[in-house]
């Protein structure tokens, strides 16, 4: 499991905070949210470098067998080849970053 990988002693930055420095926030958290609603103990998520994440999940992928590895004669979920271009098309910004609850006129490509 990923927890068994080498743990980092300092946290990687999850998002840039140059304009909102989290080390010295303008407002104390407890001014914004009552203390009893704030988490005391962090969830025990892994704390590893990004290359360790890449290595771990690449290793796990190699412990799997799929249509790309060979024939998979199972019917109920139709193990057929899906053209790879579908993946690229679904990831186009106009689809991947489109949001529901917008006017139809601004999402013409989706509604047509």
């Amino acid at each position, binding site marked *: *499991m990923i927890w068994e990988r080498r743990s980092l002693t300092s946290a990687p930055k999850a998002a840039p905070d140059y304009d909102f420095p989290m080390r010295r926030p303008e407002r104390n958290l407890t001014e*914004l949210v009552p203390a009893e609603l704030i988490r005391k103990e962090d969830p025990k998520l892994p704390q590893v470098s990004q290359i360790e994440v890449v290595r771990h999940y690449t290793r796990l992928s190699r412990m799997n067998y799929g249509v790309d590895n060979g024939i998979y004669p199972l019917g109920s979920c139709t193990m057929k080849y899906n053209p790879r271009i579908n993946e690229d098309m679904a990831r186009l910004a*106009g689809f991947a970053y489109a949001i529901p609850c917008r006017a139809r006129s601004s999402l013409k*490509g989706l509604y047509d």
Partner: protein
Amino acid sequence: MSAFEFIPNTPEDQRRMLAELGLSDVEQLFADIPAEVLRKFQPIGLEPLSELEVSNLVSQMAAQNAHTGQYISFLGGGIYDHYVPAIIAHLISRGEFLTCYTPYQAELSQGTLTWMFEFQTMICELTAMEVANSSMYDGGSALAEAMLMAKNVTGRTKFLVARSLNPYYRKCLETYAWGAGLELFEIPFTETGQLDRNAIPKETENLAGLIVQTPNFFGVIEDLSGLKDLIKDAFLIVSVNPISLGILAPPGLFGADIVTGEGQPLGIPQSFGGPLLGLFATRMSYVRKMPGRMAGRTVDADGRIGYVMALQTREQHIRREKATSNICTNQALMALCATIYLATVGRRGLRSLAELNLQKAHYLAEKIAKIPGFALRFSGPFFNEFVVQTRKKPARLLKTLRDEGFFGGLDLAPYELLDGNNLLIAVTEKRTRDEMDRFAKILKGA
């Protein structure tokens, strides 16, 4: 070659397969379908296109959609514009993840079963619950499944539902309740935007559960303390935003019986509302009544650690009618996104990310509240989303904002939860101080 270049069978392959079956025509394979049924299924007139043509055509369609890559988005209401680390698309695109079957055969699926176990562990850590399944379809259906589970465990049929629940989730609950013969009773919210606990009836006979969301649809954080005591042995069911749990006290600490949530904020693109990811966690004592699939850890004959599907007799492929739920195979690739996301962001990263969301949202909220004609609708604490009440017409405001490059928020009028003009505004870690200053300036001038 066949007409579609991705179908590997040649006409010669097809002829040989038919010959083996003693047939001469593919149509003969469908001979047992009555002619009047067959007539209803006419070809829809699709002509095969080359990959290049498909790419051009679909790219043109994509270009007609306004999206959060072009606009600075303050839209939330269930789906959020968080940053998705690049690592996720790369790792989930490995063919062994992308093209594997549901992990029925453990020997061929150790990769999937291992990350499923990791995913479940991470969800338990976030929610402070004892056991989690390996995903549901989305936040709404996960919550509805929780309602069914509470009915099955308690044998009762009455549910109290917070009016501040996401209205789409509410619709899911109503659909499930209609099918299962359940009764839903609404609990209003107060001026803080939080659940009005005085409205919870003292009489709890036939009460199966109380359903709340935190942060709720208005972005307001619910105070869960003492709720479980008010409903006694009925289920406390809580829907959460997983990012908020980087900083907010988890529902498990307040005696929640089931915690569900929408997993989209965990590294999944907005994609016009799907595919999404349902999260579901509960207490170990209810595990046999929990819907969905679950991976477990065991050892093989040589004592080596291995992962398998656990307690499968709950699932519909064993006994469809008696199954705890009919959701088995579901958003596995999205659950993998969430697993990689949480591994990448990490323990302390999630806390700082959650705090960044919270701090930025408060910065903008305070700025907007100072503009004449605008006010915060609720006084309760919020996470990364808040409701602004205004004298101005939301449609016109949103149009002005859009002309300046902003998705300005969600007009709440269609949901009929609040009087007057109200905008739901979400702020994620992606928004900069400069963007928020410009946003507020436009509101001021509008």
